[in-house]
C-alpha cells in the first residue's frame, strides 16, 4: 500500500478498517460491499455524488443504521462489533460532525456540547454552572464567544456548525490522548467561510499529527486535495476506488466521482447592467444589515457574499420578509414594497421566489411527498373540472424530477427520503417552475455534489437567459465565480466591494472577502502560539 | 339555634319509627291473572346506566320476575349514553315490543322524538323510579311511576331532628342534574325547618354527578372549615358518601360530623355497620322490580294503574345494618313479604 503520505506511527495498525459494508433501504441498495481503511495520522477523504451513500456509511459507524449481515469492522487492530452497539462509537474513540450537525435546537449550547457524554455515561450531581464555565473556557480556546446558555435555535447557522465542530474536536482530543481516536467530518465546510475552513484544516492537521485518523466528507475537490492524504470515492453505493489525493488532479477527481468527464459549468460574463432593472433595493436595514441598496437587472445573476456576520446571507430573507426588516423599499416589476411591513405572500405576489438554506426546516416538508412539495406554489394551474387533478400533479412532479436529475425520481417518495443534494434539486425545481421575476437563493449548492451542481447551475442560467433576475447569497467563492455576472461583497452589513466581468473569479472573490475585515472564526491559540 | 325554638321531637320520632321496622306487604291493587294477559306481550327496558349496580340489579330481578310470570322481557345494556338510549328505543320500536320502560332516571321528554315514535307505533312508554311523587307526570310518557323522594327527605329531616334534639347545622349535597333532587332536598330542608322549629340551619351545595369525584371532597372540606358548627352532612345519594368521608378524615371531623343518606347501596350499608355513616335509607330492589312490573302489566293489560311505585323505605343504622348481610347486599334486610305477596296478587299461587 502507498507510503506516499505522512504517517505518524509507522507500522501502526489502521485506526479504522471496515469491509463488506452493505446497506439496503427498502429495495434500494444504498451501500454495496464497500470497504474503507483509515491509518493513524491520516486524513482520509470520502467523496461521492449526492446519494452515493457517504452519510449512510458514517451513520452505520455511529450505530444509527444497522448494516446488512457480513460486514466486518476492525479498529486499532482489534475486531469491533457491527452493528455498532449504542455508545460503542464513543467507546472506540470516534467523534462525529454529522451532515445535519446532530444538535437539538430547542436545547442550550452547553447541553448540546455535553450531549454525547450525557448520552453514554451515567452521571449524577451535574453542576450546570461548572459545565457552562467549562464550555466557555473551551470556546475561548477557539477564540469563540458563544453563550453556553443560548439555545441552538437562536444561533446563526455558522455558530451552530462551530458548536458541533468544537464538540467533535473536544471528544476526539480525549481519545487521541489515549493513542486512539477517529474524527469523522460529514460535510463540515459548507457552513463555514473560506477563512473558517482554513482554520478548520489547521485543527484537522494537528489532530492527525497527534495520531488520530480523520475521515473528511466534502463536495469541494480543492478542499479534498488540500487536506486529505488519501481519498475513497463512492459511486451509487459502490466503491469507485481509493486514491492518493496528491496524485490525482481536479478533473481526475470529478471523473472518479461522476464516472465520466464533466465539463465544469461556466457562464459567460457579459455586462448586463445596461438591461432594464428587474428589482431595485433601497436603504435596506435590518438585523446585521445596514442601509444596503442595489439593483438587479433582467437576466442577471448577482452574488452576495462576505465573511461570517457580514450580513450577506441575511439580505434575501429580509427582502422576502422571512425575517422582518427595519426599513427599506424594494421595487420589483411595477410594484414597490415597503420592507418594514410586507409579508412573504406580498413578495410572492410581486413575482419573487426564495429558496432558504434550511432545507427540511424552511424550504420543504420532509414528511410530505415530492409531489406535494413541488406542487405547492402552482396548485392553481392544476385545477381541473373536479378540483385538483392528482394524476396531472404527479406527472408534473415526475417530469421536473427528470429535468433536474433527481435520484431516485419517484414523486411519491417523501422528501426526507432523498439525500441532501437531491432534495435541493427538488426544491429548486419547485420555485423555478413558477418562472419568477426575481429568484433569491441562500447557499443553493450547500452539500450538492459536483455533478448535480452543474445541473443546478445550468438550470439557473437557463432561467436567467429567459429574463429571470437571480440573487445568490453564498460563501462558496467557486460557485459564485461559476455563475455570477456580478458579486456584491459585504462586511459589517454593508456592501464594501462590487466585482463584475472578468473580476468575478474564485481568487478575487476570496481576496475581497478576506481584506474586507478581520474575521472571527475558528482560531485556537494552540495553533497561534 | 334560637332559644325559643321548640322542636317537635315526637312527630320526628314517629316518622323515624314508622320506617325502622321491616315493611309489611299491602296489595297495591286488585289481583289479576298476569300469566294470561301477558302471554302475548313483550316488555323492553332501558336503564339509565347498566354500569350502576343498583339499576342493573333492578333490571336483573325484573328479568327473573318476567321469567316467573312467563312473558318476554329484554333489557338494553348501556353506559348512560343518550345515543345508546335512542338506539334502544328504536330497537324496541322495530322489534314489536308492547311496552318500553325507561328505568331509574331517564327523563322521557329527554328522548322526546323516540317516545313519540313509540307511542305512534302503539307502544306504551313508562318512566319508572325517576322522579318524585310531587313531580308532574312527564307528557312524553304513557305513565310515570315515581317514588316518594319527598318522603325520604322527611325521614332524613326527622332523623336529624331526633338525633340532635332539634339543634342541627346540616350541609346538604345534591345533584340538580338528577330530576328527583330538587323536591327531595327541598323536603329535607322543609322538614328540618318544621320539626326543629327554627333550631336547625342548613346549607345546600350542588355538585353535578359528573363532578362528584373532583368537587365533593373540596367543597365539603371548605364548608367544614368555613363553618365549624356543621354537625350533619346529608349526601342525598349515598354513593356520594365515599367523597364526603375523606373530607371528614382530613379535616379531623370524623365522629363529630354525622352522615345521613339514602339509596341502600351495599358499600354504604357496610359503612353504616362500621359506624362511618350514621344511617342510610334503603329501598328493596326486588320490591322495586315487582312493583314496576306490576304497574306496567296493569297498564299493558288495560287495568287501572297505580299513581306511583309501591316502594317501602327502610332505615339502616348501626343496629340493623348486618340484617342487610355481611358484606351487605342490595336485597337483604327487607324481609320477603313482597315475593309471595305479588305472586298471590298475580294469581301465580
Amino acid at each position, binding site marked *: 500500500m502507498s507510503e506516499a503520505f505522512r504517517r505518524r506511527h509507522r507500522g501502526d495498525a489502521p485506526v479504522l478498517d471496515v469491509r463488506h459494508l452493505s446497506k439496503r433501504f427498502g429495495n434500494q441498495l444504498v451501500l454495496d460491499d464497500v470497504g474503507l481503511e483509515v491509518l493513524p495520522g491520516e486524513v482520509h477523504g470520502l467523496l461521492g455524488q449526492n446519494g452515493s451513500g457517504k452519510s449512510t456509511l458514517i451513520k452505520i459507524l455511529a450505530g444509527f443504521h444497522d448494516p446488512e449481515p457480513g460486514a466486518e469492522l476492525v479498529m486499532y487492530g482489534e475486531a469491533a462489533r457491527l452493528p455498532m452497539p449504542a455508545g460503542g462509537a464513543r467507546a472506540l474513540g470516534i467523534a462525529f460532525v454529522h451532515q445535519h450537525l446532530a444538535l437539538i435546537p430547542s436545547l442550550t449550547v452547553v447541553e448540546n456540547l455535553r450531549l454525547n457524554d450525557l448520552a453514554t455515561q451515567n452521571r449524577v450531581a451535574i453542576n450546570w454552572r461548572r459545565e457552562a464555565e467549562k464550555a466557555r473556557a473551551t470556546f475561548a480556546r477557539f477564540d469563540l464567544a458563544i453563550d453556553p446558555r443560548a439555545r441552538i435555535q437562536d444561533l446563526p447557522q455558522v455558530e451552530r456548525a462551530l458548536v458541533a465542530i468544537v464538540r467533535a474536536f473536544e471528544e476526539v482530543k480525549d481519545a487521541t490522548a489515549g493513542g486512539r481516536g477517529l474524527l469523522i467530518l460529514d460535510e463540515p465546510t459548507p457552513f463555514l467561510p473560506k477563512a473558517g475552513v482554513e482554520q478548520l484544516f489547521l485543527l484537522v492537521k494537528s489532530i492527525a499529527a497527534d495520531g488520530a485518523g480523520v475521515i473528511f466528507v466534502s463536495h469541494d475537490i480543492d478542499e479534498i486535495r488540500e487536506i486529505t492524504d488519501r481519498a475513497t470515492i463512492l459511486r451509487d453505493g459502490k466503491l469507485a476506488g481509493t486514491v492518493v489525493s496528491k496524485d490525482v488532479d481536479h478533473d481526475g477527481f470529478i471523473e472518479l466521482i461522476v464516472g465520466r468527464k464533466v465539463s465544469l459549468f461556466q457562464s459567460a460574463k457579459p455586462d448586463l447592467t445596461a438591461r432594464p432593472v428587474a428589482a431595485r433595493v433601497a436603504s435596506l436595514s435590518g438585523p446585521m444589515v445596514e442601509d444596503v441598496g442595489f439593483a438587479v437587472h433582467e437576466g442577471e445573476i448577482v452574488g452576495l457574499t462576505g465573511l461570517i456576520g457580514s450580513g450577506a446571507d441575511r439580505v434575501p430573507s429580509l427582502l422576502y420578509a422571512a425575517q422582518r426588516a427595519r426599513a427599506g423599499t424594494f421595487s420589483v416589476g411595477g410594484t414597490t414594497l415597503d420592507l418594514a411591513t410586507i409579508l412573504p405572500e406580498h413578495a410572492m405576489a410581486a413575482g419573487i421566489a426564495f429558496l432558504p438554506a434550511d432545507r427540511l426546516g424552511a424550504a420543504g416538508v420532509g414528511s410530505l411527498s415530492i409531489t406535494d412539495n413541488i406542487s405547492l406554489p402552482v396548485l392553481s394551474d392544476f385545477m381541473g373540472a373536479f378540483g385538483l387533478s392528482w394524476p396531472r*400533479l404527479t406527472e408534473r412532479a415526475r417530469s421536473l424530477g427528470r429535468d433536474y436529475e433527481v435520484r431516485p425520481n419517484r414523486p411519491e417518495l417523501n422528501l426526507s427520503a432523498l439525500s441532501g443534494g437531491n432534495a435541493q434539486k427538488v426544491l429548486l425545481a419547485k420555485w423555478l417552475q413558477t418562472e419568477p421575476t426575481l429568484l433569491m437563493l441562500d447557499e443553493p449548492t450547500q452539500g450538492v455534489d459536483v455533478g448535480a451542481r452543474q445541473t443546478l447551475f445550468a438550470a439557473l442560467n437557463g432561467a436567467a437567459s429567459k429574463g429571470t433576475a437571480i440573487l445568490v447569497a453564498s460563501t462558496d467563492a467557486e460557485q459564485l465565480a461559476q455563475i455570477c455576472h456580478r458579486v456584491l461583497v459585504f462586511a459589517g452589513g454593508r456592501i464594501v466591494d462590487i466585482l463584475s466581468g472578468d473580476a468575478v473569479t474564485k481568487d478575487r472573490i476570496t481576496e475581497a472577502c478576506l481584506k474586507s475585515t478581520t474575521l472571527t472564526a475558528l482560531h485556537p491559540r494552540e495553533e497561534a502560539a | 339555634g334560637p332559644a325559643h325554638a321548640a322542636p317537635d321531637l315526637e312527630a320526628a320520632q314517629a316518622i323515624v319509627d314508622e320506617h325502622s321496622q321491616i315493611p309489611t306487604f299491602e296489595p297495591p291493587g286488585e289481583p289479576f291473572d298476569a300469566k294470561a294477559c301477558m302471554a302475548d306481550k313483550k316488555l323492553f327496558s332501558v336503564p339509565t346506566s347498566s354500569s350502576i349496580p343498583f339499576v342493573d340489579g333492578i333490571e336483573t330481578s325484573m328479568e327473573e320476575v318476567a321469567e316467573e310470570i312467563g312473558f318476554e322481557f329484554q333489557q338494553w345494556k348501556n353506559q348512560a349514553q343518550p345515543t345508546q338510549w335512542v338506539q334502544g328505543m328504536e330497537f324496541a320500536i322495530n322489534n314489536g315490543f308492547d311496552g318500553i320502560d325507561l328505568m331509574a332516571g331517564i327523563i322521557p321528554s329527554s328522548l322526546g322524538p323516540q317516545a313519540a315514535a313509540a307511542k305512534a307505533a302503539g307502544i306504551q312508554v313508562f318512566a319508572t323510579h325517576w322522579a318524585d311523587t310531587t313531580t308532574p307526570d312527564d307528557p312524553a310518557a304513557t305513565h310515570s311511576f315515581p317514588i316518594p323522594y319527598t318522603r325520604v327527605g322527611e325521614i332524613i329531616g326527622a332523623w336529624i331532628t331526633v338525633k340532635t334534639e332539634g339543634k342541627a347545622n346540616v350541609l346538604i349535597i345534591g345533584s340538580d342534574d338528577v330530576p328527583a333532587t330538587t323536591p327531595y332536598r327541598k323536603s329535607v330542608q322543609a322538614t328540618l325547618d318544621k320539626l326543629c322549629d327554627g333550631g336547625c340551619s342548613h346549607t345546600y351545595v350542588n355538585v353535578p354527578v359528573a363532578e362528584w369525584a373532583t368537587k365533593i371532597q373540596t367543597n365539603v372540606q371548605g364548608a367544614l372549615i368555613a363553618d365549624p358548627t356543621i354537625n350533619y352532612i346529608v349526601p342525598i345519594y349515598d354513593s356520594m358518601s365515599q367523597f364526603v368521608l375523606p373530607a371528614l378524615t382530613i379535616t379531623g371531623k370524623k365522629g363529630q360530623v354525622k352522615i345521613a343518606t339514602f339509596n341502600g347501596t351495599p358499600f354504604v350499608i357496610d359503612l353504616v355497620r362500621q359506624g362511618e355513616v350514621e344511617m342510610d335509607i334503603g329501598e328493596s330492589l326486588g320490591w322495586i322490580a315487582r312493583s314496576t312490573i306490576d304497574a306496567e302489566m296493569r297498564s299493558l293489560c288495560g287495568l287501572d294503574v297505580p299513581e306511583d311505585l309501591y316502594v317501602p323505605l327502610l332505615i339502616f343504622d348501626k343496629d340493623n345494618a348486618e340484617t342487610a348481610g355481611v358484606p351487605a347486599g342490595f336485597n337483604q334486610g327487607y324481609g320477603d313479604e313482597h315475593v309471595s305477596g305479588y305472586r298471590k296478587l298475580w294469581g301465580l299461587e
Partner: protein
Amino acid sequence: MSEATATPGAAPINWKRHAEAYALVFALVVLFCVFGALKPVAFLSWANISTMLGSQSVLVFLTLALIIPLTAGDFDLSIAATLTLGAMMVAVLNAQMGVPLPVAMVCAIGAGAVIGMVNAWFVLYFRIHSLIVTLGTGTFINGIVLWISGSSTISGIDPVLVTYVVVTRVFGIPLVFYYALTLAIVLWYVFGYTSLGRRLLFVGRGREVARLSGIRVDRVRFFCFIASGMISATTGILYVGTIGAADPNSGNTFLLPAFAAAFLGATAINPGRFNAFGSLIAVYFLVIGITGLSMLGIQTYVQNLFYGGALVTAVALSQLVRKREAQDFS
C-alpha cells in the same frame, strides 16, 4: 406517512396501498358479518342498520369538526364542551325563553364561532400550546353550561328541529345521517382537491415552509379553530335534535371517542392523514361493535374492552400493513 397517500393518482394500481387504505373497511365488514351471524333477525334488519347510522351521526359530525384543526397541527379539546354549549343554548333560548328556533340556532353557532376565536386568540397571539388552551376553555365552557342550564336537563324544544333531524327519513335513515355524509363529502373534497386543503396540510406539517410559500399560517389556523368551533356547535344542535332535549353533561363524553375516531380514521382510506371518510368508517366500525354487544345483552364492561381493544388492534394491524413505518401526523 405512507407512500400511498403521497402518491396521489399514482398510475399503476398499488396493492399494498389499497390493502392499507381499505384494511379498516374490511375489519368493519367482518365485524358486521359476525354480529349478523349471531343475531341475524335483529342485527341484519334494515331498521337496525338505519338506527346505527342515524344515532351516531352526531359523533361523526364531531369527529369531522376535530380533524380540521388536527390537520392544521392544532389540538382542540374544547369541541365536546362546545357541543354541549350549542345544545344547551338552543334548549335554553328556544324551550325556556321562547326564542324562535332559527334565531336560537344562529346564536348557538355564533357562540361556537366565538369559542373558536377565543381559542385561536390564545394560541396565536400568546403562542400557547393548543392542548392547554382548549383544555382550559373547555372547562370554562362547562362552567357556563352548568350556569345557563341550572345544571339540569332541558326539554321541550320546537319539534320542527326534531322533525328535520331524526323524524324525517330517507330510505329509512334519519336526515341527520345525510347531513353528516354531506359534511364528510365536503371535507373530503376540500382536503383532497382544493388548494385550501393543501394549505391546511402544509400549515400542519411545516409551519415555516408554509409561511415562506406565501401561506398566512396564522390566518389558516385561526379559521380552522373557528371552523371546528362552529361545526361543534352545530353538532350540539343536531344532538338536541336527536334526543329532543339538552343535558349539561352527556355531551362531554364524546371527546375521547371523537379523538379515537379521528386517529383511527387516519389509518384508513388516505392512510397517514386525518381524512373525512376514514373518520366516518372509524366511527361506524366502533358503533357496530357496541351495538352488537348491547343487542346480545352482554355486560357493559365488555363494551369498554371492545372499544379500547378494537381501537388499538385496528391501528396495530394497519401499521403491520405499512411495515410498521412510524406514524407522523406533524
